[in-house]
């Protein structure tokens, strides 16, 4: 009881206590196992082996549209802790609750006005950006090898990876158009009558590049099958909302509301590359891979 009371009273001196204690793994620093490796007869699940299998992913933290990706994952590991890999996936998408909320009001009569056109076309589902496909070429680094016990009865090998590479995404965005300087590429606006006609609903596809990185945990079902779960981020800029977000720092003509074209953070009556905003494009993935050759080597 006195020991517990002293322990509670010592919380304030926690860091001093840490400094004075010999930390984890003291048996590896002193005693008969000093200098011994952490594991003997380590099964080298990746060293010199190919892996291939189906890979699925879902985007998370999306504002306007969420996507499900399915495809293939393959790779080769030069060493048990270093390898290269690639992923290729096709994307299917659906609206987020926020987009559905805007669509609800659109159906109730929310239409673009002369003050928010061409940012809003009157058809939000068509103007928002969509992910079409995703590929990645990456280097895989596996610093952590270990095992896991489930319910103290099921044991399997588990490792943790960090990967870094190049992400290539096919995106479909609202087509570039301009209503600046008297043009009507996005649609015809009659400010006197307050009407908007001939709205341009075209979309265009392009390929976006960006770094891709993340972490993965792989559990080995047996010597030649594994199940991996990963978190991936692939930041790149794209106009996911299809709106006019940037290009001007203010109005050069306040009466007629003619914006400056100087690259500011306000709408400039143009849908172009300046409206592409950086998004992290988070994904959670699951893959089931087969490893060849079927039998791994065993370390000394």
């Amino acid at each position, binding site marked *: 009881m006195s020991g*517990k009371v002293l*322990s509670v009273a*010592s*919380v304030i001196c*926690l860091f001093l*206590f*840490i400094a004075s*204690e010999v*930390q*984890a793994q*003291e*048996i*590896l620093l002193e*005693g*008969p196992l*000093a200098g011994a*490796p*952490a*594991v*003997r*007869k*380590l*099964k080298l699940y990746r060293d010199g082996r190919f892996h291939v299998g189906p890979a699925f992913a879902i985007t*998370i*933290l999306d*504002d306007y549209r969420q996507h499900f990706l399915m495809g293939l994952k393959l790779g080769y590991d030069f060493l048990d*802790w270093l390898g290269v890999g690639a992923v290729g996936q096709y994307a299917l998408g659906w609206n987020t609750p*926020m987009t559905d*909320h*805007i669509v609800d*009001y659109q159906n109730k009569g*929310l239409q673009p*006005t002369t*003050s*928010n056109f061409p*940012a*809003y076309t009157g058809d*939000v589902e068509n103007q928002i950006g969509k992910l079409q496909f995703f590929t990645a070429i990456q280097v895989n680094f596996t*610093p*952590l*090898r*270990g*095992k*896991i*016990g*489930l*319910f*103290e009865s099921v*044991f399997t*090998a*588990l*490792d*943790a990876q960090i990967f870094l590479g190049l992400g290539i995404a096919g995106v479909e965005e609202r087509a570039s158009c301009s209503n600046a300087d008297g043009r009507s590429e996005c649609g015809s606006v009659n400010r006197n009558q307050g009407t908007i006609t001939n709205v341009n609903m075209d979309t265009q596809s392009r390929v976006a590049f960006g770094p891709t990185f993340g972490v993965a945990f792989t559990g080995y079902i*047996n010597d030649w099958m594994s199940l991996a779960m990963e978190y991936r981020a692939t930041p790149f800029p794209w106009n996911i*909302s299809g*709106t*006019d*977000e940037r290009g001007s720092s203010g109005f050069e003509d306040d009466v007629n509301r003619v914006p400056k074209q100087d690259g500011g953070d306000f*709408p400039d009556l143009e849908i172009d590359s300046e409206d592409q905003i950086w998004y992290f494009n988070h994904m959670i993935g699951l893959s089931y891979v087969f490893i060849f050759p079927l039998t791994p080597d*065993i370390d000394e």
Partner: protein
Amino acid sequence: MNRGKNLLWLMCVLGAAACLFSAGVTAQEADMTFGVDETEQPAEEPVESEQVFADEEMGATDEDVLSSLGIEEEGGEAPEEGEAAPKKEPGVEKGEHPIWAVQQIYAVKGGRFELMPFYGISMNDPYIVHSCFGVGLNYYITEVLALGVNFLWFQGFNADTDTMFHVGRSYRLAVPVNEYQLNANLNFSYVPLYGKFALFNEWIVHWDAWIIGGVGLMRTKPVPMIDPDIRSFDWNNLLSFNVGIGGRIFLSRFLAVFLEIRDYMFMEKVENQAVQNEDNPNDENWPNDSANWYGPDVFTSNVMVHAGVSIFIPFTFDYELTK
């Protein structure tokens, strides 16, 4: 007097014996002595126990160890024709049972309190980021089951997102949003996963993962967005439920860092998106009636990520060896 002195001496001897046999037994403290020469020279016979255990766990051997023990116990039956001779454990003679060294649990949790200060942030609200500072306190009834409470403080840390600004500017659409104040919960935790990683085959890192669920109180209020000139709101007490998963990595026998994903669910009271009586638009009293300021309750799933440290109290523990 003599009886009292003898009794006192007996108590001292018993007390000293208890201290010697109990206080000295802690996890990973081997009661062995080795000379320097013994540790530097290779063993005359290979160290099978740990090696065999590692082999068995990694599945490197093909035969079942228990069946091999059975063969030896039965007097070493000769293998049938065409069948390979059973592998003999090196150094294990007929009739002998090998001894495996099993590493004790690095950080025993049973019977200890866990103090968990953390920072949390919401993940699935596109309009407002709900950040919080919180603390949790758990008591581990067993090694895998814990009962605890946690407290989250949000007020002052709610922030508008860029998305809310862009939606308002581009679509001219006001979105009902809510501000959070606090959340307090009673929780049950279960730790089904325990594992360890070898870092570059040099260091061993112990970790575990848990699932958690509980019930509690959530205090929120709407932020007047639809009709801010007239409407004002007070904090509402809401019943909330939560489920989550988490994992921690042990830095020492009493200190760990953790990451947790928790979904707090409750029926949110949101601002009424109507600003007039739809049945009678000329009703001038309708906007000023506070009974009309709330819309239908909305089921809200607030997914939070918590990151913090776990401090186990008491800092040390006695590992009870099985007899």
